[in-house]
């Protein structure tokens, strides 16, 4: 697991799992469809990513599908890091 993926996973465990909820979060654990993060909470997760990585994720790209696993979130961040660095 690379650093970006680890940061995203650790943030989700810290902020979105209830205290005492011992479910394992891997790169492929379903977050939105698995009921760990809902579509409302996605907004604060998006805000965290934008702040942490100095990127802007357009609302059109912030879909439940794009946020459904740590892996997909990391891919999304990398895509917009590339956009930011080439701008």
């Amino acid at each position, binding site marked *: 697991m690379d650093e970006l993926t680890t940061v995203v996973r650790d943030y989700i465990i810290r*902020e979105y799992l*209830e*205290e*005492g*909820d011992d*479910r394992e979060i891997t790169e492929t654990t*379903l*977050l*939105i*469809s*698995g*009921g*760990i*993060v*809902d*579509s*409302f*909470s996605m*907004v*604060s997760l998006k*805000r*965290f990513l934008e*702040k942490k990585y100095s990127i802007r994720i357009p609302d059109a790209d912030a*879909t*439940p*599908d794009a946020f*459904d696993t740590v892996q997909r979130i990391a891919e999304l961040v990398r895509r917009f890091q590339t956009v930011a660095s080439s701008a």
Partner: protein
Amino acid sequence: MSNLPAYQELTANFDWSIAERELGYKPGGPINIGAMCSDRLCDLGLANKVALLWEDCQGNTKRFTYDDIRVLSNTIARFLCDLGIQPGERVCLFMDRVPELYIGFLGILKTGAVAQPLFSAFGEESLLVRLGDAGTSAIITQKKHVHKVRKIRGQLPKLRHIVVVDAGRAPLQECETSFQMDQAPRVEQFPVYPTTAESPSVLHYTSGTTGQPKGAQHVHYSLISQYLTAKWALDLRPDDIYWCNADPGWVTGTSYGIIGPWSNGITQVVLDSGFNAERWYGFMEKYRVTVWYSAPTAIRLLMKEGREVAQKHDLSSLRHLASVGEPLNPEAVIWSQQLFKKPFHDTFWQTETGCIVITNLPGMPIKPGSMGKPFPGITATVLDAKTYEPLNQPGVAGLIALRPGWPSQVRTYWNNETGFKAKFKNGWYLCGDRASIDADGYFWFMGRDDDVINTGGHLVGPFEIESALLGCPGVAESAAVAKPDPVNMEVVKAYVTLKPGFEGSDDLELEIMNHIRKRLSPLAMPQEIEFVDSLPKTRSGKIVRRILRCKEFNEPVGDLSTVMDD
């Protein structure tokens, strides 16, 4: 084609006794929703019919017949009685959409206790307010949620029992009991408590502009209109496979996710999963869903994912589509017509009405964007906001009002009779929404008439958010208002002034958002926070949310004579 006669014929000859007769209820006799939704169906020969097909996000499935839900609700009822739960006591259901939630609801009612369902995403502060107000005696929950209950347990002296349905070998604390439905000895016979029409049944908390959430108390007679509206407005028929997306933590999930379908002897499917377009369409295809009751927010999320996802699935089983929670925009009606070859039928109602009151009945011509017409037996109008007299002028906006007296009308607010009485003016019940009526009698929703925020079909009270905001670092004062949103219709926006020494920043904004999400719920979390130097106030110092709301909606603010110059 619908099996209903024309609208005029229905309304002219209508009487709620139609439902009483069909349900075998004799006025003055016992009526218990728990038994009416399980034992009665078995007595009618449906014992082996499937009542519930359940699936979770991992693809695990469970299947329950009407005899299963009869016996298992008996089992839960017996367990609660053995704990010492008495008729009239409040028993909270605080779970995800697991079978124990649905069947436990019937079990609680069979004991004569009052079911108090709460949304499992609620944080400890939301939970504390609602359990404290209701004086709840027991809460049935899951291992993943019990920690929220433990945090507030010491502040709830009336809470005697915490029941965990999936504890397994996890250690439990004082007053906590493990109950595993599938391992408990099955109770074939249980003496159902003889509740009558006006016996309290369900307590659902709903938000208002002022004060903390109010407990809307319903009674067992509500079944009469919940049964008939499910049959007519949702067009439920014996061979249907029905899917209601709503969580039973909210009124739609109990009135039409439990009582409506099961009193009609319908097979319903439940997906215990968050939103995922592929999974949702796949679920409907797999179970050959025929009637789908959803919400505009979900429909708009599906629209956002694109029609290609839907077209990969065979959804030809869908026969009737309906929607609730907020106005269904015309684009969504047209989208479903194009994609599913049938429109969504908008339905309007709220926690206090207990059942659908204004709707597009099956077979009725749909005007995209309209709420439809009053359900038979419901007298609805729009009132002048000053005189509370019916407007009787097509196209003129007024307050949506209902003539009291339908079976599932809320009977009171728990501990708050004054707040309940304030909902009535001039002999009408005020819904708190504005609409106009066109020349054909169709209602057209205009918006809320108060400061309550309708987000994703759920009402969120500004007072509760503002109270919680005061617990955030640096927050001096705040105002929570609605902000328009393309998917959720409205989302929460907070205007915040900070204490000396604090400065607004991205970090502070995220900290505040996460604080509210965890303490209250994701729905209540402000999706935007604007740090300001001051808030608009009246001369007596009351914050005027209306001005901020108008700013968000680009609407004129109206009379400002009582607002202080700043």
